[in-house]
């Protein structure tokens, strides 16, 4: 178990460096520069040009960030500063270093993601279980129809719909900004509803498959009822395949937060991340990409650990691969 954990953490570190290299390369390969693409700085640059100072700002930036060196040298500077914890300053926000910037915005994004996945997991287990033990009844049909609609509609459409209903028509919940938990309700629902759609269908099928296993016949033969069969035996076993589909959802969820934070005007990292990408704000792109990749890898590790908690065969025999 410990050996497995150490190995997985080593994998994460290796993957981390590969991600940083690829990100760095792609970032450099993308056309345009911060000065051309950022409108505000662009205006200054234009002003500077008109005043005959055209290259001063660019030269300052290039010097500060070694932008005129070959990319692999620049990458080496990056790695060195990363290891020595000098993360540098964003182009966009030259007075705050990226670590502070991330520290201010990331908790909100992470909170949003975790709350959404937690809500989605709990609700889809509940809905899937209900549908499975009431197989082929109106309850099953209704739940699965709603789930199908949920799957088909992307989170940003759900978000607009929720804003319209709860914010505009009924004035029940705030739709913009963040000033407390109430501001989280609609963003969380927007992210969770599409996930509940596919996850609850999966849960239903998985539980139904478990309920049709031979060992469930044994439970009935021992005098157990549907309750004992479903909650005492089948549910746990059906969570195993369920957990595997939660993993890939996590990565998609991270991308989902980008749209949702924009739509709801939440001051999260996703917002800053997309801005950084479109303005070629190199230091910020690097640090936020790496952070996202670490979060996804750690979440996947957690999913695998949950797997071993659920299945004694994995727990006792260790891991393969």
């Amino acid at each position, binding site marked *: 178990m410990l050996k497995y954990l150490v190995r997985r953490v080593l994998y994460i570190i290796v993957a981390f460096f590969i991600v940083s290299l690829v990100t760095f390369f792609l970032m450099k390969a993308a056309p345009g520069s911060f000065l051309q693409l950022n409108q505000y700085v662009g205006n200054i640059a234009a002003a500077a040009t008109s005043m005959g100072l055209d290259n001063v700002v660019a030269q300052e930036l290039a010097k500060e960030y070694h932008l005129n060196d070959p990319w692999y040298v620049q990458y080496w500077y990056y790695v060195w500063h990363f290891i020595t914890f000098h993360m540098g300053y964003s182009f966009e926000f030259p007075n705050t270093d990226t670590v502070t910037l991330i520290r201010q915005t990331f908790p909100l994004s992470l909170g949003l993601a975790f709350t959404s996945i937690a809500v989605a997991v709990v609700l889809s287990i509940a809905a899937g279980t209900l549908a499975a033990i009431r197989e082929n009844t109106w309850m099953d049909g209704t739940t699965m129809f709603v789930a199908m609609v949920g799957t088909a509609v992307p989170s940003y459409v759900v978000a607009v719909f929720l804003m319209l209903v709860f914010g505009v028509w009924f004035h029940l919940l705030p739709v913009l900004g963040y000033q407390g938990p109430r501001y989280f309700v609609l963003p969380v629902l927007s992210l969770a509803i599409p996930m509940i759609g596919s996850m609850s269908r999966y849960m239903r099928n998985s539980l139904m498959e478990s309920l049709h*296993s*031979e*060992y469930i*016949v*044994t*439970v*009935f*033969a*021992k*005098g*157990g*009822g549907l309750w*004992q069969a479903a909650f*005492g*035996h089948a549910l*746990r*076993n059906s969570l195993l395949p369920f957990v595997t589909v939660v993993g890939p959802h996590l990565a998609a969820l991270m991308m989902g937060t980008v749209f949702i934070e924009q739509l709801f005007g939440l001051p999260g990292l996703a917002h800053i991340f997309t801005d950084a990408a479109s303005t070629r704000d190199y230091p910020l792109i690097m640090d936020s990409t790496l952070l996202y990749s670490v979060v996804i890898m750690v979440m996947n590790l957690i999913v695998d650990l949950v797997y071993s908690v*659920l*299945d*004694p*065969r994995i727990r*006792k025999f260790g891991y393969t691969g």
Partner: protein
Amino acid sequence: MSVLLRIEDLYVQFGTDEGTVHAVNGLNLELKAGGTVAIVGESGSGKSTAMTALMRLLPRTARVSGHIWFDGQDLLSLSSRQVRRLRGHHISMVFQNPMAYLNPTKTIGQQLMEPLLYHHLATPRQAQQQALDFLERVGIASARARFSSYPFEFSGGMLQRVMIAMGLIAGPKLLIADEPTTALDVTVQAEILALLKELQAEHGMGMVLVTHDMAVAAQMADEVYVMYGGMVVEHLPSHELMKGEAHPYLRGLLRSIPRIDGRREKLPFIAGNPVNTVGTLPHGCLFASRCPHRRNQCSERPPLVKLGDRHEVMCWLPYVDMEEDDDGQFGIQSVGAAGTHL
């Protein structure tokens, strides 16, 4: 001895897309308290379906008719709540493949205690003690350590011992053993059968043993019911099995058992396929298409002929002398497809 179980005219049908499956077509069976009967037949003969109907574990799509009298009540007319009170308490079942019939993610101990807990026969602490005692009784060494093991840590034979312990822990009057040794090694088979016999004597319970193994049936049971196409074609005391058998199907079955001693020759077998139970059943004898003694009467359903005490056969042959038929006098050779002598 009083009668513990009486099955009267049991019919089981399933509606499928291909047509109605006639799984059991009028089964009659009687078991005395403390006795053992064996139901023998090929796969698809309806033997397991009949027992599953007895346990009321068939899917809802099954149409079941007839009566199954157990302890003075008709199991088929009980509510599902009443049936639940019987299952695992007064009637238990041991299944064929213990690896599949035990939950892979729960410990042996947890699963073993469940009959007691489901029927509120013991507190969890008492149940644990009883489960430990039973594990020892069925021959599992270091029961305490094994109690918290998972099924994948056991061998097939050990798991079947656990299944048997699970069947007996609540003290049933009737045990249904559905091919309990089919999935096991030969050496383990004998041990499991011996264990079943011992425990049966200890607890004085009745047992219905479903098997396709003639030797097992002869060794374990007082009486044998031979099923074909969902019907009992012959019922006889097990000591009659090797000398008094009358139905051509049973003869074929007995002759297709390989022998270790004697001359080596090609193993006789019953040519043809088991009767198709989907759609309308043949009007006449279900075995006629494979029968070496077929004659004109066989296009009508044969009567049940009583040949002796607890010995009946469903065949026309007792009305004619069967012996003169052996050489294929009626134009139907008593030879299997590969030219083997029956």
